């Protein structure tokens, strides 16, 4: 049996885990498990490509003779990691310069040289000396509201993963349960891997509940995975309010430590300075709160994450190591993976201490729906802490005078046909959307969807078309998942996040002028043409019942 059964994990977690496995046979066993189990194509691809990679590596690349132009930059990065001889590296660098001269490839080799030389030179281990800012920059008179003037805590202690559980009308929202399940899994793995904190004590999942009558939810939160619940109730908090929610969360986070608020220096449920990790929902209010809390605690965060894992990180960024050329391993780092650049790339963000300044807690907000809701375990036990503090009237300057619940939005599921549009409409966005809507109208029961690319674009839509552009029509990983009888994808290139939202459709018809578009690989029909020409023809043909009529009419014009 392989160590990891892929069917127990979500796709986002498996990536880094699979990368760590170097035994191709073990991977093959995993592949079998996946095939017999959930049989998710992206998981299989992940495992297969890892096997392929290992087999290539087995072919033993000799750095002194290999043709660098045949290697990708990633291959070069892997190759140089195992080379300790700087002469070999320098010789590789020369060959790259003479050959493809790729900046990124050279960067990988140079970084490796720098990290080797840094480690025997004066760089590593060189004691960094603390210089107070007023001596370091005598020209500046150091403004700074207390928010800009923070230094490292002496012997700071950070522990546990704190999860802000957002509620609506007295109930946990789904993403709160999803985060608790994820946090449970992360901290179970953490405790297995590191044997708990530095003293061998297991670290916990701490759930935070703030609101009007949220205390009633404590039991539920424990059932979903929390070890401890810290709750605060006040009837002025029935709606989310930025200032008091931030102050309360931060007061809880600091309680019992060196920076505790007055009156909270000694609490029986916490004896560390601040949380090690914090997790918030990437909802409008949750994301705001995450930014404010992490700012107030003088730390950082990544927003809208879809994958989280904890492992060590080797960092050579001098802003973090203190010395150019040094590489330093940071332990127990929360790796926060998020779609970035309008969905073009995944970035992995790390929140890391620097010399003389701590950046803890390491914070993240997570996209709702990224993780599964765990099964509640009514047997689970946990500690419930009812936090008490005074709320200043000044914090309630922003007043919620009214609220209305909106209709549940647009449901793209359950229709016979879905017509979805992508960035192929770029030449004339308004017209493109109109053509898509015309096709929708030709069907008895069809819905109109969009790829994420259209929503994050800066297209200007005119007239009524604008009302069709919004996240509530997005299909894909962070949008809706549809399984119609027929899916028409017009001008959609077929990013993997889009595929997740539509690949269970019975028949997929893609229209794309780029014969190399990825969507071709998961379409049943690939109409290689311009959507501005093809869509009206399809509409006309569907309306007329057959294409022949449409063609005949068109040729009469």
């Amino acid at each position, binding site marked *: 049996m392989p160590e990891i059964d892929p069917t127990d994990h979500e796709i986002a977690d498996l990536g880094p885990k699979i990368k760590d496995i170097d035994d191709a046979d073990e991977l093959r066993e995993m592949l079998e498990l996946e095939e017999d189990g959930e049989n998710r194509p992206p998981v299989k691809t992940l495992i297969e490509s890892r096997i392929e990679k290992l087999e290539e590596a087995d072919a033993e690349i000799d750095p002194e003779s290999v043709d660098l132009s045949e290697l990708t930059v990633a291959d070069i990065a892997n190759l140089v990691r195992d080379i300790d001889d700087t002469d070999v590296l320098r010789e590789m660098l020369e060959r790259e310069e003479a050959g493809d001269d790729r900046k990124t490839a050279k960067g990988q080799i140079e970084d490796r040289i720098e990290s080797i030389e840094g480690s025997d030179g004066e760089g590593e281990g060189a004691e960094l000396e603390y210089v107070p800012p007023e001596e370091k920059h005598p020209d500046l008179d150091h403004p700074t509201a207390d928010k800009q003037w923070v230094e490292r805590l002496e012997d700071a202690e950070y522990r546990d993963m704190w999860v802000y559980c957002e509620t609506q009308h007295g109930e946990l929202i789904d993403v709160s349960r999803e985060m608790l399940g994820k946090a449970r899994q992360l901290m179970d793995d953490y405790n297995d891997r590191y044997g708990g904190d530095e003293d061998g004590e297991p670290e916990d999942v701490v759930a935070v509940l703030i609101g009007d009558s949220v205390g009633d939810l404590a039991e539920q939160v424990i059932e979903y995975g929390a070890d401890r619940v810290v709750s605060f109730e006040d009837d002025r908090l029935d709606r989310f309010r930025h200032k008091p929610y931030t102050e309360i969360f931060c007061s809880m986070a600091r309680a019992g430590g060196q920076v505790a608020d007055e009156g909270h220096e000694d609490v029986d449920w916490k004896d560390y300075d601040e949380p090690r990790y914090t997790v918030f929902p990437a909802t409008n209010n949750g994301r705001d709160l995450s*930014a404010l809390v992490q700012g107030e605690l003088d730390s950082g965060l990544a927003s809208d994450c879809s994958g989280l894992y904890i492992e060590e990180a080797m960092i050579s*960024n001098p802003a973090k190591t203190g010395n150019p050329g040094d590489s330093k391993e940071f332990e127990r780092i929360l790796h926060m993976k998020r779609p970035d650049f309008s969905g073009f790339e995944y970035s992995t963000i790390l929140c890391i201490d620097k010399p003389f300044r701590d950046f803890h807690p390491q914070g993240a907000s997570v996209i709702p729906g990224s993780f599964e809701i765990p099964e509640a375990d009514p047997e689970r036990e946990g500690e419930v802490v009812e936090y008490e503090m005074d709320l200043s009237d000044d914090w309630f300057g922003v007043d919620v005078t009214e609220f209305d619940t909106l209709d549940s939005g647009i449901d793209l599921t359950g229709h016979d046909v879905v017509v979805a549009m992508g960035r192929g409409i770029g030449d004339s966005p308004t017209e493109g959307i109109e053509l898509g809507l015309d096709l929708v109208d*030709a069907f008895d029961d069809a819905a109109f969807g969009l790829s994420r690319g259209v929503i994050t674009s800066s297209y200007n839509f005119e007239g009524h078309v604008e009302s069709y552009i919004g996240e509530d029509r997005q299909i894909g990983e962070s949008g809706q998942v549809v399984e119609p009888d027929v899916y028409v994808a017009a001008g959609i290139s077929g990013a993997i996040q889009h595929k997740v939202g539509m690949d269970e459709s019975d028949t997929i018809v893609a229209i794309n002028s780029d014969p190399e578009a990825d969507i071709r690989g998961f379409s049943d029909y690939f109409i290689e043409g311009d959507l501005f020409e093809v869509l009206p023809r399809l509409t006309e043909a*569907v309306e007329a019942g057959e294409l022949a009529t449409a063609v005949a009419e068109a040729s009469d014009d």
Partner: protein
Amino acid sequence: MHSVVLTKGVPDFREGQVSFDEDGHLERGKTPTVMNPNDKHALRAALQTKVRQGGTVSLMSMGPPGYMEVLQEGMREVYADDLYLLSDREMGAADTWATAMTAATGIQKLDDPPDLVFAGFKTADGETGHTGPQTEWCLDMPLVTHVISLDIDEEDGVLRAKRLVEGDVEEIETVEAPLPAFVVADPEFEPTYRRADHRLKHKDLRETTQDRAEEFGEYLADDSDLDPTDWDRFTMWDHAALNLDPDYIGLDGSPTIVAGVDPIPKAPSEREATVVDPDDDAAMERVVEELAPYAGGD
């Protein structure tokens, strides 16, 4: 009424503008910079305030000198009166917290303290949605985010706004906040000009600011040394002018770093697509046969 609007330049993500290197990474240098699309909603909110309440609008950004063109674009949109660029190598590679520190200090340095600060929601490149709230946290003002409509009541010294709340159900809240206040506009923000004189004023302002933006364009074209004293509506401040410690801004002041960027993996192929040439009627007909059973819209 003095408003400040924060804006940022981002790569132009429209089809055809984005450039990738051989590893599939975005090439920022080769992708043109434009004003962050979401900032336009903040600009519209500020413009509505200027048209309805009168007063001035300052537009502020942090970034390389090239962002002056972004400011010029913004000047046209918001009919801004003056422009501020916080620009310094020390400010480079800042994450949201270090950006917020810098922007907040820039706002505090203004001679005329603002009654309203406007920011957009996410940027098209970082997409964090954090910079607005964190800048407010440094300034400690009443904060109203995700604003979709806005009314200013100068007599009572308050703003009234509608804001969007997400969760298992979506809600719209009506909130009231004392001025000065910090407003983050939602991408769904809609300005309203109910009265005819507002529409007239709008037109007047457009004409005068067009001229001003042209003037700034000439200044940009003429003076490559970028002496900020040459054109009194433009001010550039570096970290020393802002009295900011370099250890607390830019990369050095940033809690977070980007450890890796992976191209999003390609979707694996699973279906054997029949490639259809749109000029081949017989092939197109097979597609239509798939669609025809669902016809019947009216």
